[in-house]
């Protein structure tokens, strides 16, 4: 007898408030990768003033926003805090990006304005810095499994995050600034919470992480859950490799000089008309 199809229950926090850098693509990556495998999904959205049933969520998403939106989210999160903490301790999977990451820590001190209290789920604190870290990032991470993976994306943050002993970094920076530009760490993890500064959005071009989150979410719900069926991920892999190349290229100044020289060379050498005729 065929068993009933599995369902993963996704809770998407602040879809309107914290939605600035295409991060809704993370949700899209998860639900498409479910559909392609015949796994069912449900998505519950919870904005300001709505407290979802976290006990029934397998996978919780919380994304980035600008300081103004983050302040509103921090205020609202207090009402959601208890149930969300319980879900984390019960090994629900959480992906937190950028401001979402900062809000899961103990606090965030913005450069201008009062301290924002976080949830304290992650043993991490964030301080506003004078400059922004903007650019491509690559990390190496093993998530404690011994399997080496690379994670690629784009960071854009002025907050400097420092981890305490209760949180492990998500990975070590290969290119880019990471948590604070000093200690070579990026992101944080605790139980099944995965927090990062990486946009891109991060899941489509890191299909391995999307699948890791999905399989942990299914394991949260189904004891007898086996490995996920592999997918043809050619476009994902090509985008991953392209981003990796961007994150690991030499420093900006040399890059700009080389680009300018090759542009001049091309311009002087270009024939009057190129390309096939139609």
């Amino acid at each position, binding site marked *: 007898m065929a068993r009933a199809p599995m369902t993963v229950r996704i809770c998407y926090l602040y879809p309107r408030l914290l939605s*600035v850098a295409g991060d809704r693509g993370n949700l899209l990556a998860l639900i498409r990768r479910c559909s392609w495998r015949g796994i069912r999904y449900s998505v519950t959205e919870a904005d300001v003033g709505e407290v979802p049933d976290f006990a029934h969520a397998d996978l919780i998403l919380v994304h980035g926003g600008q300081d103004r939106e983050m302040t509103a989210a921090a205020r609202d999160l207090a009402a959601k805090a208890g149930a969300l903490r319980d879900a984390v301790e019960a090994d629900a999977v959480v992906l937190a990006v950028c401001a979402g990451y900062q809000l899961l820590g103990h606090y965030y001190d913005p450069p201008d304005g009062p301290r924002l209290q976080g949830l304290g789920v992650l043993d991490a604190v964030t301080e506003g810095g004078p400059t922004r870290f903007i650019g491509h990032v690559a990390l190496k991470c093993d998530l404690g499994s011994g399997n080496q993976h690379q994670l690629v994306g784009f960071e854009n943050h002025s907050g400097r995050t420092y981890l305490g002993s209760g949180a492990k970094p998500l990975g070590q920076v290969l290119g880019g600034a990471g948590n604070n530009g000093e200690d070579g760490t990026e992101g944080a993890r605790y139980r099944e919470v995965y927090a990062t500064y990486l946009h891109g959005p991060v899941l489509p071009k890191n299909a391995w992480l999307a699948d890791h989150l999905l399989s942990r979410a299914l394991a949260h719900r189904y004891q007898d859950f086996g490995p996920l069926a592999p997918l043809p991920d050619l476009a994902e892999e090509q985008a991953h490799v392209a981003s990796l190349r961007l994150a690991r290229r030499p420093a900006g100044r040399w890059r700009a000089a080389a680009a300018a020289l090759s542009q001049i060379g091309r311009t002087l050498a270009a024939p009057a008309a190129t390309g096939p005729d139609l």
Partner: protein
Amino acid sequence: MRTIASRSPGSSLAGKAHVTPSGQARLALALGAGKAAATASRVLRFGGGTSFPGSVARRMDPRILQKVGAATDVRKVIVTGSNGKTTTCRMLAALARASGLMVTQNRSGSNLLQGVISAAVRGMDLRGRMHAQLLLLEVDEATVRLVTPDLQPETLLITNIFRDQLDRFGELYSIARGLEAVVDTLPATATVVLNGDDPLVASLATRTAARLVYFGIQADSSATQAPEHAADSIRCVRCQHLLTYRAVHLSHLGDYQCPECGNARPGLDVAVTAILPSPDAGFDIIVETPAGTFPLQVPLPGLHNVYNAAAALAGVMASVQRPPEPAEARRAISGLRPAFGRLEEIRAGERKVVLAFVKNPTAYNTTLFEVLRRPGLKHVLAAHSNTVVDGEDFAWLWDVELEQLTPQLASLVISGTRAEEVALRFKYAGARPADLQVLHDRSTALHAALTQTQPGESLYIFAGYTPMRELRSIMQRRGWVASPWEE
């Protein structure tokens, strides 16, 4: 409304006390070098001289913009904002010419510091005399704070603030803070023209001494229900409560109010009171202004062009002594063709190429919906590159409603230095993996896309600034289209 002093044409800067003879000589040197650079770059075929002359001239005379600003015999108008700068400038120039003025402008999209100086270099003779009576500059929203204090414009027009190239500017609100600081420095003799329907733009002028003019849409006919999910700044600027809209026209632009603190859309000085789609893809609109009622025919598709027309009309009224009569204005606006890459139609032999310049989610969605309204399946070439102009971060592509395009795809070719990123987005938007043809080389990509387009059909190109210029110059070399600076 202020007036333009009558003057003899081409009075020189040398007569002004604060430009010394050595300063004048330096300026002449800078202008001469800039003009030589412009000629050299055209002869050597590097890009038609849109920014190189400016960088040469500035090297020779770092104070060149201040000296242009000191020229009292020319009115200076700066147009800035996220979207609509180029089209607003084209409309404003047409309206100013309709009222009998000569206009000097910077070239389409060439709106960083060097491009602005290049325009000034081109418009002046070696003694620093401006031929035109109106110097109209499209200026990038981050560059405007470098240009405005030196140039001292009589009019500053802000079209809107959308999320655009966040990796370059950091955050939406820091763009707003930067613009607000610029607006604050303007004297009482200047006029600031603001989009009243944009809550962020309307909030910029709380402290300035300058005269304020608000434009916007007062008509309900085109209103949609709720802001799209790419919408920005839908929280109250003062108290951060969610804004409510009586009407939303485009993204977060509309008739808004804050239920918490009472902050609301300001009264409009230049208001579009009626919008009727016209049969040929544009709009017939009625604009009420202090100088009378203007029935205009906007020949460009997309509601954003209604905003551009209102902005241009408000801008011309703030800047010229005798604004055009309604009939002159109507003739000027109805005669416009789409700007470079704004759904520009190009004949490619038996095929047609429609060029759409897309640089942020709002601009992309607006253009996309316009294309989706057209019947039939679409052949598409999508191209994005990471450059200084186009930025490095393409996360915003995930806020574009490409899910609505994929069911209408006849063929798809993807190009540019970030082609893999674009291909991935199309895959998750529902394009079949077998249809994702990545061809990095722009010329090869254009050839492949046109090969799949049958005679009589159209190829739609959605591209960022740099790949669009590259694709357009390939078409130029084939003789399908003139160079943008020859039009």
